[in-house]
Structures are given as structure tokens and as C-alpha cells.
């Protein structure tokens, strides 16, 4: 059935977007930086995995290396850029523009190093498909959905049960409080950036494996993710993930009723209206 097929495709895409949204939310609620360069990390993930597999590394090993690469790039951006700006009391607008600068640099560095053309990670098994009822999904799609759910659950557990995760939530709740109780927010920030960037390597690489990679595609993924973050209720990891899946599924299934070229406009239009009607989002907690 066409609706189910479209829904499945949308949900898979939504899972990848969900990981971006959850990690973006983690970063935003702790560091208060609107970290648009996150889209650049997503791009780095694909290229790093592509580079390593073409040099003969097996795919799974390449992904593990990419996790390290992304974590390092994320930590570097935090340490070299945001921390320095924060020391100068930079307002959010300045941080945002600096982040935008970092995004432009990363994307074009990839284009300069690996050409602006679409690249394909070499792995024969990527074209295999699996049928679930009438729905057919490719191997990378299945891996993408499963790994995204695992990462999502992992991040939720991390923030609830580990001491570092709890500390992160403390910093997110009140930076000043965290500072006086010696939680060292600067170091917590770097850790959060490293973790959030590192896990991005998994969906970044799998999406690239599934349908190729280009330098500039991360931006639209991030846009959907930020919208999911806001619509899902600021700082709410669960809301961010679920809204991502809903948004992506809506984008594909809505083509059944409205012409395809309007589906993106319709999704964003809907979001703008939601923002006017309910600025605190769908899954917002009650204000304190």
C-alpha cells in the first residue's frame, strides 16, 4: 500500500533527523549556542567514512573512526570558537554568526578536498533490500532506523542515569548554579559537544551509504531538526526525536494529498502557524 510505503520511508528519514535534533537539543540546552555548524559535522561524518572505506577499511571500522573524527571536530569548535567567544561575553547573535561561518568553512573544505560531486561509499551490500510485509527497505535504511533508535535510547539513558549526564542537565538548568557548585561548565560543554558530534557520525555515514553524499546537504536536515527541537518543546529530548519522525513522515505522506513541490513549504508553513498559536511547542513542560 502506497501510504505505508511512503510512511516507512518518511519514518526512516525521520530517525536520522531525530538523532540530529536530539544532539542539537543537547548542545543548545547546555551551551546555549545555536550550533548550526552541527550540519557541517553531519557532512564530515559521511566524507570521513567515504575516505576511509575507499582506502580499504571495512565499513564498520570506518564508522567507528568517523565517530572519533566527528567528536574531535565538535570538541575543537567548542574549544577554539565558542569558549573564546563566551569569554568575551558574546551575545547569542554573535555566536550564531560565528557558527554559520564554521559551517561554511567545513562544507567548502569538504568540497575543495573531495570535489563538489556526489560520492558513493563503496559497499556492495548497500543495494540489498529487505521486505517487511509490502514495505521494502534497503539494508542501510534498516541499519539507519535501528541505530538511530539505539542512539536515541542511549542518549536518554545517559542524560538520566550517568553522573555526567545529570551534571549536564544541571548545567542546562542553571549555568550560574553549576558554576558556583564547581561543575566546571566549560568542561561539561566540551564533553557534550564531543558526544553529540560523535554519535552524529552514525546516521551521517549511513545516510551517505544509502543515497550518496554531497557537501551541502546537511543544511536542510539540520533545519528540519531545529524545527523539530522547537516544535517538540525546547530542551525536551523525547519531544525533539518524536517530532522529527512526525515531520519527516508528514513530508513524504503529505504528497498523497498535495502536489509534491508544495510539501516542504506546507510543512514549514504549518510550523510557522504552530509557532504563532503555541510558541512553547507540542511537548512543552508546564512553566515553573
Amino acid at each position: 500500500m502506497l501510504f505505508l510505503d511512503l510512511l516507512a520511508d518518511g519514518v526512516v528519514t525521520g530517525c536520522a533527523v531525530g538523532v540530529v535534533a536530539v544532539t542539537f537539543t543537547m548542545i543548545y540546552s547546555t551551551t546555549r549556542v545555536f550550533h548550526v555548524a552541527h550540519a557541517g559535522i553531519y557532512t564530515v561524518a559521511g566524507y570521513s567514512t567515504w575516505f576511509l572505506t575507499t582506502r580499504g577499511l571495512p565499513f564498520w571500522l570506518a564508522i567507528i573512526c568517523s565517530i572519533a573524527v566527528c567528536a574531535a571536530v565538535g570538541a575543537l569548535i567548542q574549544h577554539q570558537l565558542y569558549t573564546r567567544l563566551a569569554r568575551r561575553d558574546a551575545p547569542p547573535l554573535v555566536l550564531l554568526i560565528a557558527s554559520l561561518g564554521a559551517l561554511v568553512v567545513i562544507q567548502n573544505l569538504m568540497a575543495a578536498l573531495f570535489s563538489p560531486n556526489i560520492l558513493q561509499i563503496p559497499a556492495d551490500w548497500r543495494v540489498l533490500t529487505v521486505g517487511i510485509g509490502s514495505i521494502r527497505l534497503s539494508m542501510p535504511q534498516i541499519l539507519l532506523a535501528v541505530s538511530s533508535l539505539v542512539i536515541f535510547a542511549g542518549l536518554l539513558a545517559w542524560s538520566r542515569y550517568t553522573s555526567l549526564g545529570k551534571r549536564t542537565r544541571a548545567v542546562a538548568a542553571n549555568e550560574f548554579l553549576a558554576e558556583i557548585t564547581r561543575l566546571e561548565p566549560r568542561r561539561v560543554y566540551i564533553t557534550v559537544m564531543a558526544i553529540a558530534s560523535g554519535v552524529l557520525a552514525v546516521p551521517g555515514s549511513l545516510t551517505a551509504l544509502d543515497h550518496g553524499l554531497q557537501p551541502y546537504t546537511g543544511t536542510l536536515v539540520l533545519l528540519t531538526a531545529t524545527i523539530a527541537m522547537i516544535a517538540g518543546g525546547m530542551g525536551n529530548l523525547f519531544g525533539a526525536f518524536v517530532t522529527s519522525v512526525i515531520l519527516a513522515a508528514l513530508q513524504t505522506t503529505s504528497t498523497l494529498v498535495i502536489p509534491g513541490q508544495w510539501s516542504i513549504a506546507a510543512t514549514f508553513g504549518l510550523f510557522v502557524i504552530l509557532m504563532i498559536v503555541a510558541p512553547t511547542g507540542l511537548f512543552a513542560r508546564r512553566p515553573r
Partner: protein
Amino acid sequence: MRCTLRVSVCAAVLLTGSWVNYAQAAEDITLAALLPTSGPSASVGQEEQQGVQFAMDEINAAGGIRGHMLRINFDDTQGKPDQAVLALNREIDLNKVPAVITAFSAPSLAIAPLATRKKVLVLNPAAQADKLGTASPYMFNTMPLTRDETEVLAHYLTKTLGKKTASIIYENSAAGIDGRNDFIENFKKFGGAILSDEPIQPADTNFRPMILKAAAAKPDVVFTNVIQGDSLPQFVDQVTQHGGFPTVVGTTFLTPAMGLAGSNGWYYTAIRGALPPETDQAIMKKFGTKSVSVYTREYYNDTRILARVAESLIDNQKELTGENFRTELMRIRTFDGVAKISFDTNTAVRNIDILQVQNLVGTKVAEGRVGE
């Protein structure tokens, strides 16, 4: 045979040497190519640049145009209209170019009025938006426009293959939308029906929702123009993964699909044109590429056309002005390069072939000419 070739090469080299000496005295001929060498279209822009570069080097190595070295300035348009206008103004002002080579529909349409006012010849090797046909008396298109290609394709599909219904997957960009509209018009003209049409966003490579929808309409064929040529492998993969997908048909843009597993049986129109194999080899060697793209070929060809016109002007002792370039181009009318090209209007009439991918190779199954 091989011996003769060697001899002639030697002769050419000798001649070249003497020409070069002479050429240093003569003034350079300066033209410009306005290409997107940065931005999202840069990958195509690069291929185009290689074609121009190769032709220029080849011409100069052979002694230039009647002793004048050919110099072509590459000026970046980023694929944007305003940058293209600035670039053309820059070339006219600083380098007094009488003729330019252009790329992509939007920048080309943007410079058209300026070209008319300044009387500068604009040669368009590959952009196919229908509006280009009447954009300026100074703009010449050496590729048939989308309208012509889709007409040939639709005629073949309906009349020869007896296909009745089609779905469309098109790129939501200038060329993509033109292709879609033209195909709908022509396919209906020949009695076919369109069951669905789905856009893909430029630079998006997840085609699955559109593939699913196109297949669900159960058409005889699916017309597609996935304009970003290098995203075709992803398209072919996803069509293969879907399984049982109707026959895919398309225009020149589908050419790179041959050679990809899964594209067997697809039909596409091809604007006839080929370079001598040794030129192909030389181009691949020079730029380290695995094949010579349509863009490289056509830009090579158009550079040679400009050189041919310039040569003829020199022979007739006319000044190298844009106006003279235009009159001379229309006077010569027919050019024999990668293909036989003739200008009855501002858009060339060229042979269009119908090819089918058979055993991963595009095989000619029919010939067509516009206006049948």
C-alpha cells in the same frame, strides 16, 4: 596508417613551431567563458571549463587562429544572474571581448539583454530552457532546446513503441520544469496520457517517495530528468531496489545512466555528437577523468565554433566585433564539429537519436529530427 599519422603529427609540430614564432607578433584574440566555477553548479562548471580549456590549448598549440593566440578568460558566475551580469560587464569593459560562451539557463537569460545592447555574441552550448530560443538576437544555442528533444522522444514512445501512459519525475529547477512541461505537452499531442508528476528538490538524492508514487500510478513509462547528472547512480540504485519499476525514459540528461547496472532497457534521446576517439583520449589524459562528459564535449565544440568564426573574419579582413561575429556565424551557418550543426534560427538544428541501454551500452534504436 599509423605511419601517416606519425608523419602528420611531426609536420604539425614543425609547423606549430614556426607559427608560434610568427604568432608572438600578432595580437591575441580575447574571448570569455562565463561559467559557474563555484557554488552548487560548480561540478558541471568544471567539466565545461575543461572543454573550453582543451580546445583553447589545442588551437594555440596548432599556432592559434591565423597566427593570433586565442585567450579565453574564465569568469565565475556562481550560477547566479547578478554575478553573470557583472561578469559580462567586466569582460566587455576590461577585455573588450566580442563574444562569450555562457552556461546555465538563469545566468544566460540574465545576460541576454546586455548582450543585445552591447552587441556581444553569446554562444550557449548546453543550457536548454525554452526561453533561450528568443532571449536575444545575439544569443545562439548549439543544443536543441528541451522542447525539441521531448518532441522526438514523445513521438517515438507513442508512435513506435505504442506507449499510452506516463508518469513524470522531474527536478524542481528551471531545466527540470521546462522538461516536464514540454514532455506533458508533446506526449499529450501524440495521444498519450500523464498519470502523475512528482518533483524532486535539486540536490536531494533520496528519490524513494517519488519512485514509490510514480510506480503506484502504474504507467507504461516513467519520464525523468534528474538534472544533476551525477545523482543518476543513486536514482538507478533506488529504482533497482524498488523492483518491477516501469521503463524509464528521458533526454540527454539520462546519458550517464548507461553503464550503470539496473538501467538496461531505458530509452533516452541523445543529441548526436561525438569527438574523435583520440581527442577523447587526450582530454581524459589531460584532466585525469574516466570519461568525457556531454558538457566537456559541447564546450569543446563551441570553442572551436568561435575560433572558426574568428578565423573566417580574419580571412575576410573584417574587424572582430560582436556584430561581425554574429553576421559571420549566420553566414557560415553550418558547422561540422562534434556533429553537423546548422543555424536556421538562433537555435541549432541537430540530429537527435533515440538510444536504448542494452547490456549497459547506449545503443541507437531510431533517428529523429525535430518537426516530424
